[in-house]
């Protein structure tokens, strides 16, 4: 507009600028504290579609149903701190894919776990952030996830700071997680199942956010992880040369993910577009692409409706086959659909209705995976690929 030249500040002014500089709400150049205390609760229903009975060789075609309750509370604390607590509680029941075997024609057929699995998971995450006068944020988080047969503890630290012109901000972070798995029925019904295993993971992250204009902001981040320990699935078997073996994966895994996110406001139509892309690769030779697009459309003062679309495609791990005709020299085997080549599409719709301090939220998502959706051509689709519906309703309160 005018006067972009900065005159040397007077002494009085220099002393002043050393004092706090606060910036507007949210993550504008993200190192800004949310001055509002908030509480949100949400309940969700995750329902996996039945498998195609032609591809299943067991009595049950039912899969997992999960009921989830979530709570998040966040508040500014004192002059410089903020604290957030996330709690999730899930109860799961159903059957899960056990192993894949060939039928008379050699086509892969899924065998499901016989008994219904019932489990519950509690997840806690506490994070504390400190915002400094220079616009730097340091966040530390501790978390724990507990199931009957699984225990995970994690630690994270993240530092974010911004340029003088408040157009660019930088994030670096690190995370550590330590998990222990104690499979049920090990060595009784299933002698080959291990009775206790553990794994550790270390993640390093670096990212840059850049404001591109009054209505556009972009972020790009690179994260690298190393997982070490027992990385197999103790509940899965693999059909190898007419024999059943335990799922066996390497005991180390390097992963890398490059994520880019774009936010753009279309103020004339009262909408915001979100475009996210992630490129993922690991030393198990899995490469994946994830693209998601959301359109937040304001309808009047109180309502926002958000249709969203997500596309995902991955290649297979090097030790994956639907089943194995011959043994492998490295003794690594998995028929887990998660390591198979496929693509998936999520179509979703979310809505929010705002009263003064209270909002109601609701969403529905439909996930469908298939070999046909993959970027590359898939010769044999894993019969255990999952389709699910996720329904959720929630309440948000701002104090």
């Amino acid at each position: 507009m005018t006067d972009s030249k900065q005159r040397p500040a007077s002494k009085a002014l220099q002393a002043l600028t050393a004092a706090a500089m606060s910036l507007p709400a949210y993550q504008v150049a993200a190192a800004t504290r949310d001055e509002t205390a908030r509480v949100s609760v949400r309940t969700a229903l995750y329902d996996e579609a039945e498998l195609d009975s032609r591809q299943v060789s067991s009595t049950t075609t039912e899969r997992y149903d999960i009921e989830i309750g979530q709570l998040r509370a966040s508040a500014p604390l004192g002059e410089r701190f903020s604290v957030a607590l996330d709690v999730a509680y899930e109860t799961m029941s159903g059957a899960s894919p056990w192993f894949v075997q060939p039928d008379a024609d050699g086509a892969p057929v899924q065998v499901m776990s016989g008994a219904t699995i019932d489990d519950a998971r509690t997840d806690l995450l506490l994070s504390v952030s400190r915002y400094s006068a220079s616009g730097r944020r340091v966040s530390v988080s501790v978390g724990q996830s507990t199931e009957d047969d699984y225990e995970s503890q994690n630690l994270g630290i993240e530092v974010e700071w911004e340029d003088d012109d408040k157009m660019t901000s930088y994030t670096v972070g690190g995370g550590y997680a330590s998990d222990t798995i104690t499979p049920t029925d090990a060595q009784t019904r299933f002698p080959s199942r291990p009775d206790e295993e553990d794994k550790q993971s270390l993640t390093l992250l670096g990212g840059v956010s850049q404001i591109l204009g009054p209505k556009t902001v972009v972020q790009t981040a690179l994260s690298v992880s190393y997982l070490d320990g027992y990385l197999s699935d103790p509940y899965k078997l693999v059909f190898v040369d007419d024999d059943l073996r335990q799922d066996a994966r390497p005991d180390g895994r390097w992963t890398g993910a490059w994520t880019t996110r774009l936010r753009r406001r279309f103020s004339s139509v009262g909408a915001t577009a979100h475009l996210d892309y992630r490129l993922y690769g690991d030393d198990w030779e899995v490469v994946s692409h994830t693209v998601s697009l959301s359109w937040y459309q304001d309808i009047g003062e109180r309502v926002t409706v958000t249709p969203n679309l997500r596309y995902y495609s991955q290649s297979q791990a090097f030790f994956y086959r639907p089943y194995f005709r011959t043994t492998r020299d490295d003794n690594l085997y998995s028929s887990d659909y998660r390591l198979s080549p496929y693509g998936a599409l999520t179509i979703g719709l979310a809505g929010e209705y705002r009263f003064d301090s209270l909002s109601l939220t609701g969403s529905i998502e439909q996930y469908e995976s298939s070999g046909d959706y993959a970027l590359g051509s898939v010769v044999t689709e894993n019969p255990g690929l999952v389709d699910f519906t996720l329904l959720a309703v929630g309440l948000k309160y701002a104090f």
Partner: protein
Amino acid sequence: MKQITRLVLSALTICLCSACSTTPLKPWERGHLAEPTMSWEPDPLASQLDSHVYFSKEASTGGASVGGGGCGCN
């Protein structure tokens, strides 16, 4: 599908490169950026659950922030 990926990649590259030449915004020009829907994750609970589900059902992990743990999800 390959073409779509390439298109998205090049669009993002252009966005990133143009970032180098932006002029600083005035403090009063940041109103649109402060819109709640402009945040990276407007609904943290929804994002958390989504990423947990995708993490348990797909081979890929990792994103733009640190935190959260594993699960024995079947």
